[in-house]
């Protein structure tokens, strides 16, 4: 195949650019374990409220950090207000009692889809104390835009 000189340069440059993108991603994966939330764990979606993994909802704090248990439903998160410590790992465990929902902590990279029959899980650290808005970002019915919750990140020492 006869390829013009300038086009050859362009094709090599495109190849190098794509490779650079991939190396960047690979470094993120290997170096800082930067992974999208990809937890694989199932649950009976019709028995969420009685399942021992979700019967006690809310925030539990221990020496390692915090665990947040939330059930999403049309059109609310239960519980709707969460308090977590700043600067420590917070693990979210989420499931749905009805349709597919989203869980997005606005102005952070906390973001996952919540699918009935499955448990979503991700761990993150909030550096900045303050109040964050959590929204559902997957269409779930006519009240989709009303589905939100509040995340309060408390500075270290703000509570015992």
């Amino acid at each position, binding site marked *: *195949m*006869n*390829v*013009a000189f*300038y*086009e050859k340069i*362009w*094709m090599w440059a*495109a*190849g190098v650019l*794509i490779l650079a*993108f991939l190396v*960047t*991603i690979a470094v*993120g994966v290997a170096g800082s374990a*930067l*992974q*999208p*939330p*990809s937890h*694989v*764990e*199932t*649950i009976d*979606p019709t028995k969420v409220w009685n399942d021992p993994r979700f019967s006690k909802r809310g925030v539990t704090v221990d020496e390692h950090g915090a665990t947040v248990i939330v059930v999403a439903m*049309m059109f609310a998160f239960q519980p709707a207000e969460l308090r977590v410590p700043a600067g420590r790992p917070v693990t979210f465990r989420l499931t749905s009692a*009805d*349709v*597919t929902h*989203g869980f*997005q902590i*606005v*102005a*952070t*990279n906390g*973001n*996952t*889809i*919540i*699918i*009935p*029959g*499955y*448990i979503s*899980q991700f761990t993150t650290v909030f550096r900045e104390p303050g*109040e964050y*808005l959590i*929204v*559902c*970002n*997957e*269409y*779930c*019915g*006519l*009240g*989709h*835009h*009303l589905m*939100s919750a509040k995340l309060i990140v408390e500075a270290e020492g703000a509570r015992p």
Partner: protein
Amino acid sequence: MTRTDRLPLAHLWVAIIAFGIAAAMAFMQALSRASLDLPWRSAKMYYLSVTAHGVLMALVFTTFFIMAFGYVVVTRALLRAPAVPGLAWAGFWTALIGTVAAVVTILAGQATVLYTFYPPLQAHPAFYIGLTLVVVGSWCWAVVMLLSYRAWRKEHPDAPAPLAMHGMLATVIVWLIATVGVAAEMLLQLIPWSLGWTKTVDPVLARMLFWYFGHPLVYFWLLPAYVIWYTVLPRVAGGKLFSDPLARLVFVLFILLSTPVGFHHQFMDPGVSAGWKLLHTFLTFGILFPSFVTAFTVTASMEVAGRMQGATGLLDWLGKLPWRDPLFSSVALSMILFAFGGIGGAINASYGMNAVVHNTAWIQGHFHLTVGSAAALTFMGTSYWLLPRLSGRELELALLARVQPYLWFLGMLLFSFSNHITGLMGMPRRIYDASYGGAAAAHAWRGLTEVSAAGGLLLFASAGFFILVMVGTALAGKRREPDPILWAEPLEPVSARRTLLDRYGLWTIVAVILVLIAYAYPLWAHLRMARFGSPGFRPF
């Protein structure tokens, strides 16, 4: 109008009507985004219009336009009537009946499940059956395309296929591989479940099957646009195609890489493990390459055109191009918008970074640059070129046709850029109301949402111009002997013998192997896992 041209014309008109209804739906959403208190404005109406807009634009307008264009390529590039016209017409009516069933169900408020129709949201069975008929109709088209090519090949055993047909064959192959996924989702999961024959459905399996189809769907839209960029644009611009073999290579790469990439739509999903998402990420970046090559070849072809009109300087060839021709301006402007769309696509595909944009307004900003510009604006521009040549009527309201692409470009800049920014600020997509009870984070999006609405109004005006020109041409265009449909010639003559790049069976086999590598194990592992199905919900 000849008898054989009735076939593409019928498809073209369904596409145009679907586009018009879909544009009206978008207008309602734009007003909603501006938070205007209009009497009929309601959440029910908003989500219904999002569903109708998505289905009519993404599935109906595109599919019917592409089928029309495919038949034009058979008659004008292979220079023969489509094989088995009865099957072609059966496909048309099947897809049309399916479209009407799906659209009526949506407008009756029985299928407000958006165009992604994720279960356990459950629509009326007529919605799923209707969309399945659209796909079945498109399969008839695909078979007619393949049979037409085979008949041509028998008479031309050694010649390479005309480039336009090469690109359309790639489109057909991608479509046939891709639609296996959505057919499985419809037939094995959604249709029996919506009819009450099964009680529950696994939503993660449905999403895997949907996105197995949903990403190559993007290339099903894009490849015919590329065919137009490579084989129509250079001729309209008054030049030649810069490189024929590279164009062939591009289409082959799309056959190979279009499908094994679907998990990049499911980065934020539970139930799909990270390793497979990473494999799909790598393949996704591979598919950037043919688009980079396209950007060079098509731009170089335009430069060739400018120089053939007498340009000699570094950039003065740009001024020699026919910017007043609606096909040329549509394609050129859609390429500029698509450059931004492509960069955004690379960002979306960047694995962990997807968390920043997933399901935010950024996404609607992104795909209005790709399907909404690279594909839709190219298809509109092509309609201005095609309709007079098929119907034997001169283009009416040519001034509107001349302005329309620029209006689309401007509207899309406002719409898309504002949505990219609000998306980065965390505004979710597809929400009726963005106030969130007056939350401070949501307040920051105001202003930009109004820019988005203004962009939407310009786009609606542009769509209206397009419909006026089409209808005006059909009703009042002056009858005359139509100009012939001619394809761009390459700078260097095409080799007389077909090469490895024209071995479609071989590339299809390689594509299927890649699909098996990317999907067989994750699907098998998923099906073996103990899972719980979901009953249906109709919160609309």
